[in-house]
């Protein structure tokens, strides 16, 4: 099913992006997820975002753990290298891959089970290390692939399809990410492409660790009445704090916001994040304030979405480690291997 060959016929009028690629160039294999699964919508948002950003597909590295969500990288960006690692350990693979080659874009896709249960440690620590990547959790409050157990992000009192009520405190991956020092933190909803696509674009271009918690209903196991991760529940309880648009440096500024309500966040490379504030108090550049607002909204039962926090001064692991500007995987023997006379002096020092 993966990489199923599609007819390669190309329609003459098909839309191309700045670098001459069509949408088809960003597609992947046929999805084997359940019809209606939220995850498929996220895949399509990813394809759209990368297309619009005009990134050559081979410059993206897609990584995942294990789960229905973690299968999705097979279903988008078929021309990108992909790595479907083991359950909960994608962040370490991403760290190694990124250390080896800082010149590519790293896109991690994970599930709530993958990241909030077995992978919680790796998730928290990859944030601490400021890895330059976009990390998306496709959050359905359940274990899809193992048939519907509650995950650690399920709310207290949320009922599983079998009728069991979750009794444990949920883990809020957004407050966790803010507290661990992520420099770009957002929440969105698989059903809201308009909100999601700009966030993915901005997250991919963010020069540090960017995180999107994307609510993504599991239609088979967690979309019933009583679940707090169902399409209906999210639609009803969702409150967006802002509307985002991302304008890469090279593009003209096209969006037209009412001036007063819009905050423009400019990054080093000149690209712009334009936030249309929906909640006047919301302040996406103060970490403590962002955390406080997320936590208070949670206490009140609201599902806040939008961009919660962004650090315009963000830097990444390579900058703190001061690694070579040429990717490590491109250094040759002459650069890496000391000559034998060096070894002679080491021998001398060991006598």
């Amino acid at each position, binding site marked *: 099913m993966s990489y199923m060959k599609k007819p390669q016929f190309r329609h003459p009028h098909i839309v191309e992006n700045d670098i001459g690629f069509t949408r088809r160039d960003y597609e992947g294999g046929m999805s084997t997820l359940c019809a209606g699964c939220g995850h498929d919508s996220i895949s399509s948002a990813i394809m759209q975002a990368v297309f619009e950003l005009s990134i050559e597909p*081979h410059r993206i590295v897609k990584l995942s753990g294990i789960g229905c969500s973690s299968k999705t990288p097979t279903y988008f960006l078929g*021309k990108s290298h992909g790595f*479907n690692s083991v359950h909960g350990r994608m962040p370490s*693979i991403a760290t*190694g891959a990124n250390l080896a080659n800082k010149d590519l874009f790293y896109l991690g896709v994970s599930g709530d089970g993958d990241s909030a249960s077995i992978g919680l440690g790796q998730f928290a620590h990859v944030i601490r290390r400021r890895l330059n990547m976009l990390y998306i959790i496709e959050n359905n409050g359940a274990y899809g692939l193992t048939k519907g157990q509650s995950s650690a992000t399920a709310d207290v009192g949320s009922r599983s399809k079998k009728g069991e009520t979750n009794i444990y405190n949920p883990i809020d991956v957004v407050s966790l990410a803010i507290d661990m020092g992520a420099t770009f933190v957002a929440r969105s909803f698989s059903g809201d492409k308009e909100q999601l696509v700009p966030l993915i674009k901005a997250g991919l271009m963010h020069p540090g660790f960017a995180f999107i918690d994307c609510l993504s209903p599991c239609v088979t196991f967690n979309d019933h009445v009583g679940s707090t991760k169902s399409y209906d529940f999210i639609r009803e309880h969702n409150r967006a704090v802002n509307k985002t648009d991302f304008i890469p440096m090279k593009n003209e500024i096209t969006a037209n916001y009412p001036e007063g309500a819009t905050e423009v966040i400019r990054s080093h490379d000149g690209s712009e994040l334009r936030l249309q504030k929906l909640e006047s108090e919301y302040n996406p550049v103060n970490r403590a304030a962002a955390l406080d607002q997320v936590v208070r909204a949670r206490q009140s039962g609201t599902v806040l979405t939008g961009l919660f926090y962004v650090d315009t001064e963000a830097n990444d692991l390579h900058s703190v*480690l001061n*690694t070579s500007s040429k990717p490590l995987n491109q250094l040759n023997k002459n650069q890496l*291997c*000391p*000559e034998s006379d060096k070894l002679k002096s080491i021998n001398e020092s060991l006598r």
Partner: protein
Amino acid sequence: MHSESVVNDFVVKFANVNGSGSASANHLFAKAVFRSGVPVSPRNIFPSNIQGLPTWYEVRVSEKGYTGRRGGADIVVAMNAQTFFDDVNEVESGGYLIYDSTKPTDVGVLRDDVTFLGIPLMDICLHEFGNITQRHLFKNIVYVGALCALLNMELGIFKNLIKEQFKGKEKLVKPNEKALDIGFQYAHDQLGGPIDFRVERRDLLSNKILMEGNDALGLGAVYGGATVVGWYPITPSTSVVEAFSKYADQFRVDEGTGEQLFSIVQAEDELSAIGMAIGANWSGARAFTATSGPGISLMSEFLGLAYFAEIPLVLFNIQRGGPSTGLPTRTQQSDVVSCAFASHGDTKQILLFPSSPTECFEFSAQSFDLADRLQTPVIVLSDLDLGMNDWCCDELQWDDSREFDRGKVLDAAGLDAVENWGRYRDVDSDGICYRTYPGAHSSKGAYFTRGTSHDSDARYTESGAAYVENVERLLRKYETSKKYIPKPIIDYTEGKKTSYGIIYYGSTEPALRESLDELLEGDLPLNALRIRSFPLHAEVYEFIEQHKTIFVVEQNRDAQMRQLIISQQNVDMSKLVPILHFDGTPITERFISNAIKDYLDPKVMPFSLGQGKRAI
């Protein structure tokens, strides 16, 4: 006692409290022996804590070049009140005990076959040194000075070492020299000068160095081109990464920009550490991790992934005493089976067994070539004894014309040149396929790496036939690996025929080679084979064929290498006699020789030696 003095053949043992600064003083002594041109082997026996518990440092001096642990001690420097009585008992008959005589004690009554040499160390230091730390630290240097006199060594050697050690901190040279002089003088004047054990200058070490195995592994990884390290601290593997870091700082920082041509990340645990190394190797950087004991268990899930998805990986396992947390500061060779078959399912890993720091350096550099060539994990199994002690070994060599073997990798040009590339297609029929790095080509060569079953184009499959084809190819690759991994080294006893063979590996080497000499002297010639890698070469089985009895000498309880030998090919198992040493101390010549002699002695029946057991 001794009719005449014993030259260059004895053991000095220092008994100290850890955290008291004795380690560097004791090391100074060992290094001075080395500088005298005489083979020396120091061994640090330390507790699993930071301060206040007993620690020992054994220095064997051996003109014949026997650097294995001997056992026993001819001279004991007993600086730890907690263990004093045990330390007195350690001295071989006719030996010496050096102690702090500041508080008068009647030690003489303890043993009459030992000479007690008291030095009022505390007293001396109280008078000679002003500050408290100095008083404590210099006690150690004073006894080293005394040893210099007692063993009739050259004080100049010690002084040169002090100068080298404190290059840049010249202020420290003087007081150290003073402490040395005081000790020397005291021994000379008050203890009657040289004793019956002597170090005499020789020139036996022209191409030798004194180096720790872990230091050599770290350096080898720099030469091998490693650029990414993910690791998590654990004794005794930590110093591998520390060494890599030290040498990388020296050789891999761009002079112009100050940029690092390497990266080291201390991970949150071993699972993450190995994940980083796998991710980086997948992306085409050379990367490694290092661990010990529990770390190996924690890495086993990822070892299975790297095996099945065929990702190069170098893992240094510095073995310690198991099971579980076990004996964290003791040595064993007990991860052999768990590494060979690391992970659930049908997995088989490549193992290397270096037996000296020189080989650690070589194998370390080579392991990156092997991992790239074979696209699979390569686990280098060292141990605490080899890893954390200074071994007297051959100097390191490097051929500047040597190139990295990156194995079968297609770059953009390569991809353009081939048709119908598929990640797991066995086009060369050796089980090894062509891989690509992420981003290699703008439209070709991308594939999806996974730990689930995949077909030859890396696509997910549940087809039984595709699965079987894939895992049988992995067997083919495993077979191919024998062409590349280090062959066993075989030593036939010169000029003598024997039906006895001995198989060993790793840090057992020095004790074993001494034992071969010893047995040969007792007219018991043995041929010896040293295993250097797994899977095993045909030579191992031919060697077994050739002999009536083969002793398999190991430092574990369960005869793990013997188990590997029989797991790979049909052999006559009954010929393979295990000699097992596993109390956490390094194996000795005495142990090996006695085990073999007892086995062959018809009077010792049934063969039962406590730790050297025949039955398995």
